[in-house]
């Protein structure tokens, strides 16, 4: 799915937990998430903590869309 969208010339970033799968499939821009059932907010943590994490990682994903890369890249997250 990622590849078909990128093939159409639309930049796409995939946010996912299983980075090696995204690499193997051929996703070019990858931002890591924290888990499979809750990619962007651990329900064990307070709502504010979840929000901070989600806001941060989505922000990284947006910035990744502007990044000029020449190979598959996993973007670094801080929280």
């Amino acid at each position, binding site marked *: *799915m990622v590849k078909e969208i990128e093939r159409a010339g639309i930049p796409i970033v995939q946010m996912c937990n299983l980075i090696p799968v995204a690499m193997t499939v051929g996703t070019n821009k990858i931002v890591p998430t924290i888990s499979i059932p809750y990619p962007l907010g*651990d329900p064990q943590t307070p709502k504010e903590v979840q929000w901070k994490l989600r806001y941060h990682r989505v922000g990284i994903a947006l910035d990744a869309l502007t990044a000029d890369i020449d190979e598959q890249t996993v973007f670094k997250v801080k929280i």
Partner: protein
Amino acid sequence: MKKAIHYINQFFAGIGGEEKADHKPEIREGLVGPAMALNEVLDAQVTHTVICGDNFMGSNTDEAVEMILGFLEDKEFDIFIAGPAFQAGRYGIACGTIAKAVKEKFGVPVLTSMHIENPGVEMFKKDMPIFKGGKSAAKLKDDVKAMADYANKILNGEKTLPAAEEGFYDRGIRAQVWLESGKTGAQRGVEMLIKKLAGEEFISELPIPEKDLVAIAPPIKDLSKSKIALITTGGIVPVANPDRIQSASATRWGRYDISKMDRLKAGEYKTIHAGFDPAAADADPNVVMPVDAMKEYLKEGKIGALHDYFYSTVGTGTTQAEAARMGKEIVVKLKEDNVDAVIMTST
């Protein structure tokens, strides 16, 4: 008698389904679940079963591998067998990950089995024989037997055949053998050439694998003037699931209007994905489809516009062919609305 150790996930160990997928690694003496079937057909005693939750292995890979290698340190074993994992993606990756680590640390032969659509095949087929397995556990007996037949050859020091004849995926390894036909490479090459010139079919001895990499799309220049769209394979849909998207092996997708809301509300949206515990996503769908964060970035002006719809399907068990088709259909909609870039979340 030689000894074997078997790796299975929490589901096949009877511990539980998705709600137990965070189960930490453990080792049990004797046979658990599919290890019984394996023990029956293997020319070795399966002495231990290693069990690990698929999500634990996926999200805490280093810790899981380290723990399991620790369990095995004082064990004697001649072969390590993982799975079969069928079409279960995380299980397949777990089998490949641990088998590869065991092979590297202990130098024993390792084997597993997966369906061709399992992403673990592409990731690990070079590292170990991965037998061509069935889609689901209905094929458990056959898949275990296929691994055991080959394992028995290794255990008994018998000659093994090329991948295609043994029934595992090509590993890209070339072994030098004497052909019974006695024909030299030159003779075989000329024979192939003649067939080719005559328009007849021939089988190359050097197949070139196709790699389908997509050119990196040009980056967005100015986010504040761009329209971004959201897609998820995490199965987030309105609670009634109006497009009746399947919970696994999806062939359908849907798009849902988010233009008049700040976030996805629990009770209005939920996940129908059958591949993970839905509790967290149902309690707050934004943890899978971050509409709230995107709306905030829209308010702040970091992005120029958010496409009115988010797109959703289910990624578990979905074939690459179906995923590609759905991707192409979604592209048409994105282009109609001049979407500049996409964020996709996957579970």
